[in-house]
Protein backbone atom coordinates (compact mmCIF):
# COMPACT_ATOMS: atom_id res chain seq x y z
CA UNK A 1 0.00 0.00 0.00
CA UNK A 2 1.41 3.38 -0.96
CA UNK A 3 1.86 6.04 1.68
CA UNK A 4 -0.97 8.03 0.14
CA UNK A 5 -3.36 5.08 0.07
CA UNK A 6 -2.51 4.26 3.67
CA UNK A 7 -3.14 7.84 4.65
CA UNK A 8 -6.45 7.92 2.81
CA UNK A 9 -7.55 4.70 4.36
CA UNK A 10 -6.73 6.00 7.82
CA UNK A 11 -8.46 9.26 6.97
CA UNK A 12 -11.85 7.79 6.25
CA UNK A 13 -11.97 5.34 9.10
CA UNK A 14 -10.69 7.53 11.90
CA UNK A 15 -13.69 8.78 13.89
CA UNK A 16 -12.11 12.12 14.74
CA UNK A 17 -11.84 13.26 11.17
CA UNK A 18 -14.64 11.37 9.47
CA UNK A 19 -16.79 14.47 9.79
CA UNK A 20 -14.27 16.64 7.94
CA UNK A 21 -15.74 16.42 4.49
CA UNK A 22 -15.00 18.30 1.29
CA UNK A 23 -17.99 20.57 0.76
CA UNK A 24 -19.69 21.74 -2.37
CA UNK A 25 -18.46 24.89 -4.06
CA UNK A 26 -20.48 27.97 -3.15
CA UNK A 27 -22.30 29.75 -5.98
CA UNK A 28 -20.19 31.99 -8.16
CA UNK A 29 -20.86 35.71 -7.80
CA UNK A 30 -24.22 36.86 -9.24
CA UNK A 31 -25.02 33.52 -10.89
CA UNK A 32 -27.92 32.73 -8.55
CA UNK A 33 -30.88 34.96 -7.60
CA UNK A 34 -31.02 36.61 -4.19
CA UNK A 35 -34.03 35.77 -2.03
CA UNK A 36 -35.35 39.35 -2.21
CA UNK A 37 -36.10 40.58 -5.72
CA UNK A 38 -38.93 43.15 -5.44
CA UNK A 39 -39.91 43.08 -9.15
CA UNK A 40 -41.14 39.53 -8.34
CA UNK A 41 -43.57 40.76 -5.72
CA UNK A 42 -44.08 37.53 -3.79
CA UNK A 43 -40.45 37.64 -2.64
CA UNK A 44 -41.17 40.69 -0.50
CA UNK A 45 -43.13 38.80 2.18
CA UNK A 46 -41.12 35.59 1.86
CA UNK A 47 -37.44 36.45 1.63
CA UNK A 48 -35.55 36.13 4.93
CA UNK A 49 -35.00 39.54 6.54
CA UNK A 50 -32.33 38.48 9.03
CA UNK A 51 -28.79 37.39 8.28
CA UNK A 52 -28.33 33.89 6.96
CA UNK A 53 -26.02 31.78 9.10
CA UNK A 54 -23.07 30.36 7.20
CA UNK A 55 -23.25 26.57 7.20
CA UNK A 56 -20.17 24.41 6.80
CA UNK A 57 -21.05 21.42 4.65
CA UNK A 58 -21.16 18.37 6.89
CA UNK A 59 -22.17 14.78 6.28
CA UNK A 60 -25.76 16.05 6.40
CA UNK A 61 -25.24 18.28 3.35
CA UNK A 62 -22.97 16.10 1.22
CA UNK A 63 -25.30 13.12 1.46
CA UNK A 64 -28.78 13.05 -0.04
CA UNK A 65 -31.65 10.72 -0.85
CA UNK A 66 -31.14 7.99 -3.41
CA UNK A 67 -33.99 7.18 -5.78
CA UNK A 68 -34.50 4.11 -7.91
CA UNK A 69 -36.75 2.32 -10.33
CA UNK A 70 -39.36 1.77 -7.63
CA UNK A 71 -39.89 5.53 -7.65
CA UNK A 72 -39.83 6.12 -11.38
CA UNK A 73 -41.46 4.01 -14.06
CA UNK A 74 -40.45 4.12 -17.71
CA UNK A 75 -43.77 5.72 -18.72
CA UNK A 76 -43.30 8.57 -16.24
CA UNK A 77 -41.01 10.31 -18.74
CA UNK A 78 -43.69 10.50 -21.43
CA UNK A 79 -46.33 13.09 -20.49
CA UNK A 80 -48.26 12.44 -23.70
CA UNK A 81 -49.23 8.89 -22.70
CA UNK A 82 -50.77 9.32 -19.26
CA UNK A 83 -54.38 9.30 -20.48
CA UNK A 84 -56.50 7.43 -22.96
CA UNK A 85 -56.02 10.03 -25.69
CA UNK A 86 -53.23 12.28 -26.91
CA UNK A 87 -52.96 15.75 -25.42
CA UNK A 88 -53.45 18.74 -27.70
CA UNK A 89 -50.44 20.81 -28.61
CA UNK A 90 -47.07 20.63 -30.23
CA UNK A 91 -45.34 17.37 -29.27
CA UNK A 92 -41.74 17.95 -28.14
CA UNK A 93 -38.76 15.98 -26.91
CA UNK A 94 -36.73 17.59 -24.13
CA UNK A 95 -33.41 16.00 -23.31
CA UNK A 96 -30.08 16.91 -21.87
CA UNK A 97 -27.31 15.94 -19.52
CA UNK A 98 -27.10 16.40 -15.80
CA UNK A 99 -23.55 17.34 -14.87
CA UNK A 100 -21.79 18.91 -11.94
CA UNK A 101 -19.45 21.89 -12.16
CA UNK A 102 -16.52 19.50 -12.41
CA UNK A 103 -18.08 18.17 -15.67
CA UNK A 104 -18.87 14.88 -14.00
CA UNK A 105 -22.17 13.27 -15.06
CA UNK A 106 -24.68 12.90 -12.23
CA UNK A 107 -26.00 9.38 -12.74
CA UNK A 108 -29.25 7.76 -11.62
CA UNK A 109 -30.45 11.12 -10.33
CA UNK A 110 -34.11 11.99 -10.02
CA UNK A 111 -35.47 14.77 -12.25
CA UNK A 112 -39.10 15.82 -11.81
CA UNK A 113 -40.95 17.98 -14.32
CA UNK A 114 -44.24 19.88 -14.25
CA UNK A 115 -45.86 22.31 -16.64
CA UNK A 116 -48.96 23.98 -18.04
CA UNK A 117 -50.84 22.51 -20.98
CA UNK A 118 -50.67 23.83 -24.53
CA UNK A 119 -53.23 26.52 -23.71
CA UNK A 120 -51.22 27.82 -20.77
CA UNK A 121 -53.37 26.25 -18.06
CA UNK A 122 -52.23 24.08 -15.15
CA UNK A 123 -54.30 21.18 -13.92
CA UNK A 124 -54.47 22.70 -10.47
CA UNK A 125 -57.23 24.15 -8.26
CA UNK A 126 -55.36 27.41 -7.80
CA UNK A 127 -55.09 28.13 -11.53
CA UNK A 128 -58.08 30.24 -12.57
CA UNK A 129 -56.72 31.36 -15.94
CA UNK A 130 -59.54 31.36 -18.45
CA UNK A 131 -58.02 28.79 -20.79
CA UNK A 132 -59.21 25.23 -21.37
CA UNK A 133 -58.03 22.21 -19.44
CA UNK A 134 -57.01 19.23 -21.53
CA UNK A 135 -58.55 15.96 -20.32
CA UNK A 136 -55.57 14.12 -21.79
CA UNK A 137 -52.86 16.13 -20.05
CA UNK A 138 -51.84 16.24 -16.39
CA UNK A 139 -48.46 17.89 -16.85
CA UNK A 140 -46.29 16.00 -14.34
CA UNK A 141 -43.48 13.53 -15.01
CA UNK A 142 -40.20 12.17 -13.68
CA UNK A 143 -37.15 10.32 -14.86
CA UNK A 144 -33.81 8.98 -13.62
CA UNK A 145 -30.65 9.99 -15.43
CA UNK A 146 -28.76 7.16 -17.12
CA UNK A 147 -25.16 6.07 -16.62
CA UNK A 148 -23.94 9.11 -18.58
CA UNK A 149 -26.19 11.62 -16.85
CA UNK A 150 -28.62 11.78 -19.78
CA UNK A 151 -32.34 12.32 -19.37
CA UNK A 152 -35.18 12.56 -21.88
CA UNK A 153 -38.83 13.58 -21.67
CA UNK A 154 -41.59 13.54 -24.25
CA UNK A 155 -44.28 16.14 -23.66
CA UNK A 156 -46.13 18.98 -25.36
CA UNK A 157 -44.98 22.57 -25.59
CA UNK A 158 -46.68 24.55 -22.81
CA UNK A 159 -48.48 27.81 -23.53
CA UNK A 160 -47.64 31.21 -22.08
CA UNK A 161 -50.05 32.42 -19.40
CA UNK A 162 -50.90 35.62 -17.54
CA UNK A 163 -50.13 36.19 -13.87
CA UNK A 164 -50.91 39.05 -11.55
CA UNK A 165 -47.43 40.20 -10.62
CA UNK A 166 -47.78 43.51 -12.51
CA UNK A 167 -49.85 45.05 -15.28
CA UNK A 168 -50.00 42.84 -18.38
CA UNK A 169 -47.69 40.24 -16.83
CA UNK A 170 -47.17 37.03 -18.82
CA UNK A 171 -45.00 34.08 -18.01
CA UNK A 172 -42.98 32.87 -20.99
CA UNK A 173 -43.61 29.22 -21.87
CA UNK A 174 -41.56 27.14 -19.46
CA UNK A 175 -41.06 23.73 -17.89
CA UNK A 176 -40.38 23.41 -14.17
CA UNK A 177 -37.51 21.07 -13.26
CA UNK A 178 -36.72 19.65 -9.83
CA UNK A 179 -33.36 17.91 -9.55
CA UNK A 180 -31.79 15.81 -6.81
CA UNK A 181 -28.03 15.45 -7.08
CA UNK A 182 -25.86 13.30 -4.87
CA UNK A 183 -25.73 15.69 -1.93
CA UNK A 184 -28.43 17.82 -0.34
CA UNK A 185 -26.40 20.96 -1.10
CA UNK A 186 -26.84 20.22 -4.83
CA UNK A 187 -30.64 20.22 -4.72
CA UNK A 188 -31.95 22.46 -7.51
CA UNK A 189 -35.33 23.63 -8.76
CA UNK A 190 -35.26 25.63 -11.96
CA UNK A 191 -37.24 26.49 -15.08
CA UNK A 192 -36.48 25.80 -18.73
CA UNK A 193 -37.46 28.33 -21.38
CA UNK A 194 -37.70 28.05 -25.15
CA UNK A 195 -35.31 29.85 -27.49
CA UNK A 196 -36.61 32.95 -29.22
CA UNK A 197 -39.54 33.54 -26.86
CA UNK A 198 -40.15 37.32 -26.81
CA UNK A 199 -41.67 37.14 -23.31
CA UNK A 200 -38.44 35.98 -21.67
CA UNK A 201 -36.85 39.41 -21.39
CA UNK A 202 -39.94 40.80 -19.61
CA UNK A 203 -40.04 38.04 -17.02
CA UNK A 204 -39.07 39.07 -13.46
CA UNK A 205 -38.24 35.51 -12.46
CA UNK A 206 -35.81 35.13 -15.35
CA UNK A 207 -34.41 38.60 -14.66
CA UNK A 208 -33.88 37.82 -10.98
CA UNK A 209 -30.59 36.17 -11.94
CA UNK A 210 -28.11 39.08 -12.03
CA UNK A 211 -25.52 37.66 -14.42
CA UNK A 212 -26.57 37.57 -18.08
CA UNK A 213 -24.50 34.50 -18.94
CA UNK A 214 -26.10 32.66 -16.05
CA UNK A 215 -29.58 33.73 -17.19
CA UNK A 216 -28.94 32.31 -20.64
CA UNK A 217 -28.45 28.90 -19.03
CA UNK A 218 -32.21 28.92 -18.35
CA UNK A 219 -32.98 28.80 -22.09
CA UNK A 220 -32.98 25.50 -23.96
CA UNK A 221 -31.59 25.11 -27.46
CA UNK A 222 -33.41 23.80 -30.48
CA UNK A 223 -32.09 20.29 -31.07
CA UNK A 224 -32.10 19.39 -34.75
CA UNK A 225 -30.35 16.08 -34.20
CA UNK A 226 -32.82 15.01 -31.54
CA UNK A 227 -35.80 15.95 -33.71
CA UNK A 228 -37.63 12.87 -34.99
CA UNK A 229 -39.12 13.11 -38.51
CA UNK A 230 -42.92 12.99 -38.59
CA UNK A 231 -43.07 12.80 -34.78
CA UNK A 232 -41.68 15.67 -32.67
CA UNK A 233 -39.19 18.52 -32.59
CA UNK A 234 -36.59 18.48 -29.86
CA UNK A 235 -34.99 20.87 -27.40
CA UNK A 236 -31.82 20.39 -25.43
CA UNK A 237 -31.43 21.54 -21.83
CA UNK A 238 -28.30 20.59 -19.93
CA UNK A 239 -28.46 21.12 -16.19
CA UNK A 240 -25.38 21.81 -14.06
CA UNK A 241 -25.33 21.24 -10.30
CA UNK A 242 -22.70 22.40 -7.85
CA UNK A 243 -19.43 20.47 -7.83
CA UNK A 244 -17.49 19.25 -4.81
CA UNK A 245 -14.39 21.10 -3.76
CA UNK A 246 -11.45 19.09 -5.04
CA UNK A 247 -9.52 17.35 -2.31
CA UNK A 248 -7.70 14.08 -2.33
CA UNK A 249 -10.30 12.51 -0.05
CA UNK A 250 -12.75 12.65 -2.94
CA UNK A 251 -10.84 9.87 -4.68
CA UNK A 252 -11.82 7.44 -1.95
CA UNK A 253 -15.45 7.45 -3.02
CA UNK A 254 -17.12 8.44 -6.21
Amino acid at each position, binding site marked *: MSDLAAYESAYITHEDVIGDVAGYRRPYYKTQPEYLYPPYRSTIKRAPTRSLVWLPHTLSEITGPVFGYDDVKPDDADLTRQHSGEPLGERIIVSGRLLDENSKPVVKALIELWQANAAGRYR*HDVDDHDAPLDPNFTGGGRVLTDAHGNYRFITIKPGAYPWRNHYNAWRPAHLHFSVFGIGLAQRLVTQMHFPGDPLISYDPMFNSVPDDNARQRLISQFDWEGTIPDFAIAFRFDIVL*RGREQTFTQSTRS
Partner: protein
Amino acid sequence: MSLLSTPSQTVGPFLSIGFSALAVDALAAEHPGGERVLIHGRLLDGDGKGASEGVIEVWQANVHGRYASPEDPQNKPIDRAFRGFGRVLTNADGEFRFSTVKPGRVPGPGGTSQAPHLAVTVFMRGLLKQLLTRMYFPEEAANEADPVLKRVPADRRHTLIARRGADDALHWNIVLQGEDETVFFDF
Protein backbone atom coordinates in the same frame (compact mmCIF):
# COMPACT_ATOMS: atom_id res chain seq x y z
CA MET B 1 -14.12 24.12 -12.33
CA SER B 2 -15.16 23.94 -15.93
CA LEU B 3 -18.90 24.59 -15.77
CA LEU B 4 -21.13 26.92 -13.79
CA SER B 5 -24.33 25.89 -12.06
CA THR B 6 -27.73 26.37 -13.58
CA PRO B 7 -29.55 29.20 -11.76
CA SER B 8 -32.34 28.38 -9.36
CA GLN B 9 -35.92 29.49 -10.12
CA THR B 10 -39.06 29.36 -8.02
CA VAL B 11 -41.31 26.29 -7.87
CA GLY B 12 -44.28 28.62 -8.39
CA PRO B 13 -47.79 27.86 -7.12
CA PHE B 14 -48.39 24.62 -9.03
CA LEU B 15 -45.59 22.48 -7.66
CA SER B 16 -47.93 19.75 -6.47
CA ILE B 17 -48.30 18.57 -10.09
CA GLY B 18 -44.63 17.65 -10.05
CA PHE B 19 -44.05 16.84 -6.39
CA SER B 20 -47.09 14.86 -5.27
CA ALA B 21 -46.07 11.53 -6.78
CA LEU B 22 -43.08 11.24 -4.45
CA ALA B 23 -44.59 12.85 -1.35
CA VAL B 24 -43.77 10.93 1.86
CA ASP B 25 -45.24 11.92 5.23
CA ALA B 26 -44.43 8.70 7.11
CA LEU B 27 -40.66 8.35 6.86
CA ALA B 28 -40.38 5.39 9.16
CA ALA B 29 -43.43 3.34 8.24
CA GLU B 30 -41.34 0.17 8.22
CA HIS B 31 -38.49 1.31 10.44
CA PRO B 32 -37.29 -1.14 13.06
CA GLY B 33 -37.06 0.50 16.47
CA GLY B 34 -36.03 3.98 17.47
CA GLU B 35 -37.92 6.81 19.09
CA ARG B 36 -40.95 7.59 16.97
CA VAL B 37 -41.88 11.23 16.63
CA LEU B 38 -44.76 13.12 15.10
CA ILE B 39 -43.78 16.57 13.85
CA HIS B 40 -46.37 19.23 13.33
CA GLY B 41 -45.86 22.82 12.27
CA ARG B 42 -46.84 25.74 10.11
CA LEU B 43 -45.09 27.65 7.38
CA LEU B 44 -45.72 31.35 8.03
CA ASP B 45 -45.10 34.26 5.67
CA GLY B 46 -44.17 37.87 6.43
CA ASP B 47 -47.76 38.71 7.42
CA GLY B 48 -47.86 35.78 9.84
CA LYS B 49 -50.27 33.96 7.54
CA GLY B 50 -50.01 30.27 6.80
CA ALA B 51 -48.45 29.73 3.39
CA SER B 52 -50.20 27.07 1.36
CA GLU B 53 -48.62 25.18 -1.50
CA GLY B 54 -45.18 25.14 0.05
CA VAL B 55 -43.15 21.97 0.14
CA ILE B 56 -41.09 20.87 3.12
CA GLU B 57 -38.41 18.28 2.39
CA VAL B 58 -36.68 16.44 5.21
CA TRP B 59 -33.36 14.62 5.08
CA GLN B 60 -32.11 12.71 8.07
CA ALA B 61 -29.85 9.93 9.31
CA ASN B 62 -31.24 6.69 10.71
CA VAL B 63 -31.37 5.86 14.41
CA HIS B 64 -27.71 4.83 14.31
CA GLY B 65 -26.63 8.16 12.86
CA ARG B 66 -25.96 6.93 9.36
CA TYR B 67 -27.31 8.38 6.14
CA ALA B 68 -28.77 6.07 3.49
CA SER B 69 -26.32 7.46 0.97
CA PRO B 70 -23.16 6.02 -0.59
CA GLU B 71 -21.48 9.31 0.35
CA ASP B 72 -21.65 8.44 4.03
CA PRO B 73 -18.42 6.52 4.79
CA GLN B 74 -19.30 5.57 8.35
CA ASN B 75 -19.21 1.99 9.44
CA LYS B 76 -22.65 2.00 11.04
CA PRO B 77 -25.72 -0.12 10.25
CA ILE B 78 -27.97 0.80 7.32
CA ASP B 79 -31.71 0.17 7.55
CA ARG B 80 -32.81 -0.95 4.11
CA ALA B 81 -36.36 0.15 4.80
CA PHE B 82 -35.36 3.68 5.81
CA ARG B 83 -34.47 6.19 3.11
CA GLY B 84 -34.48 9.19 5.43
CA PHE B 85 -36.31 11.39 2.95
CA GLY B 86 -39.67 13.03 3.58
CA ARG B 87 -41.70 15.49 1.56
CA VAL B 88 -44.93 17.13 2.62
CA LEU B 89 -46.95 19.89 1.00
CA THR B 90 -48.44 22.53 3.25
CA ASN B 91 -52.23 22.69 3.39
CA ALA B 92 -54.48 25.75 3.00
CA ASP B 93 -53.47 26.97 6.50
CA GLY B 94 -49.78 26.45 5.89
CA GLU B 95 -49.71 23.35 8.10
CA PHE B 96 -47.40 20.41 7.62
CA ARG B 97 -47.27 17.12 9.49
CA PHE B 98 -45.03 14.11 9.24
CA SER B 99 -43.87 11.17 11.32
CA THR B 100 -40.40 9.72 11.59
CA VAL B 101 -37.85 8.37 14.05
CA LYS B 102 -35.36 10.51 15.92
CA PRO B 103 -32.03 10.21 14.10
CA GLY B 104 -28.76 9.30 15.78
CA ARG B 105 -25.78 11.62 15.96
CA VAL B 106 -23.53 12.06 12.95
CA PRO B 107 -19.96 13.37 12.95
CA GLY B 108 -19.35 17.07 12.40
CA PRO B 109 -16.22 18.97 11.43
CA GLY B 110 -13.14 19.06 13.63
CA GLY B 111 -13.87 15.89 15.57
CA THR B 112 -17.23 17.17 16.79
CA SER B 113 -20.45 15.21 16.96
CA GLN B 114 -23.65 16.75 15.67
CA ALA B 115 -26.79 16.64 17.76
CA PRO B 116 -29.73 14.72 16.27
CA HIS B 117 -31.29 16.92 13.61
CA LEU B 118 -33.33 16.98 10.44
CA ALA B 119 -32.06 18.96 7.47
CA VAL B 120 -35.11 20.81 6.16
CA THR B 121 -35.47 22.35 2.72
CA VAL B 122 -38.34 24.70 1.88
CA PHE B 123 -39.60 25.51 -1.60
CA MET B 124 -42.55 27.75 -2.37
CA ARG B 125 -43.95 30.47 -4.56
CA GLY B 126 -42.01 33.66 -3.78
CA LEU B 127 -38.77 31.81 -3.04
CA LEU B 128 -36.39 32.11 -5.98
CA LYS B 129 -34.23 29.43 -4.39
CA GLN B 130 -34.80 26.99 -1.57
CA LEU B 131 -34.38 27.84 2.08
CA LEU B 132 -32.29 25.42 4.11
CA THR B 133 -32.74 25.10 7.84
CA ARG B 134 -32.55 22.41 10.51
CA MET B 135 -34.87 21.06 13.15
CA TYR B 136 -33.28 19.93 16.42
CA PHE B 137 -34.95 18.01 19.23
CA PRO B 138 -36.06 19.31 22.63
CA GLU B 139 -34.64 17.97 25.92
CA GLU B 140 -31.49 16.94 24.07
CA ALA B 141 -28.23 17.47 25.93
CA ALA B 142 -26.20 17.11 22.73
CA ASN B 143 -27.63 20.42 21.42
CA GLU B 144 -25.21 22.32 23.69
CA ALA B 145 -22.14 21.16 21.80
CA ASP B 146 -23.60 20.97 18.30
CA PRO B 147 -21.13 22.58 15.88
CA VAL B 148 -23.87 24.14 13.74
CA LEU B 149 -26.06 25.43 16.58
CA LYS B 150 -22.92 27.04 18.02
CA ARG B 151 -22.69 29.21 14.92
CA VAL B 152 -26.21 30.51 15.45
CA PRO B 153 -26.58 33.65 17.61
CA ALA B 154 -27.78 32.53 21.05
CA ASP B 155 -30.97 34.60 20.88
CA ARG B 156 -32.04 32.84 17.67
CA ARG B 157 -31.20 29.22 18.50
CA HIS B 158 -34.67 28.51 19.81
CA THR B 159 -36.05 28.88 16.27
CA LEU B 160 -34.29 25.64 15.33
CA ILE B 161 -35.43 23.55 18.30
CA ALA B 162 -38.87 21.93 18.28
CA ARG B 163 -41.13 22.13 21.36
CA ARG B 164 -42.87 19.10 22.81
CA GLY B 165 -46.58 19.75 22.95
CA ALA B 166 -49.16 18.52 25.44
CA ASP B 167 -50.16 16.05 22.71
CA ASP B 168 -46.59 14.66 22.84
CA ALA B 169 -46.03 15.71 19.23
CA LEU B 170 -43.08 17.95 18.35
CA HIS B 171 -44.17 21.41 17.27
CA TRP B 172 -41.95 23.45 15.03
CA ASN B 173 -42.96 26.38 12.86
CA ILE B 174 -41.01 27.75 9.94
CA VAL B 175 -41.29 31.53 10.18
CA LEU B 176 -40.13 33.34 7.06
CA GLN B 177 -39.94 36.85 8.48
CA GLY B 178 -40.29 38.80 11.71
CA GLU B 179 -39.34 38.58 15.35
CA ASP B 180 -39.13 34.81 15.57
CA GLU B 181 -37.81 34.43 12.05
CA THR B 182 -36.38 30.95 11.64
CA VAL B 183 -32.64 30.75 11.13
CA PHE B 184 -31.88 29.91 7.52
CA PHE B 185 -28.47 28.90 6.32
CA ASP B 186 -26.11 30.29 3.74
CA PHE B 187 -25.05 27.01 2.28
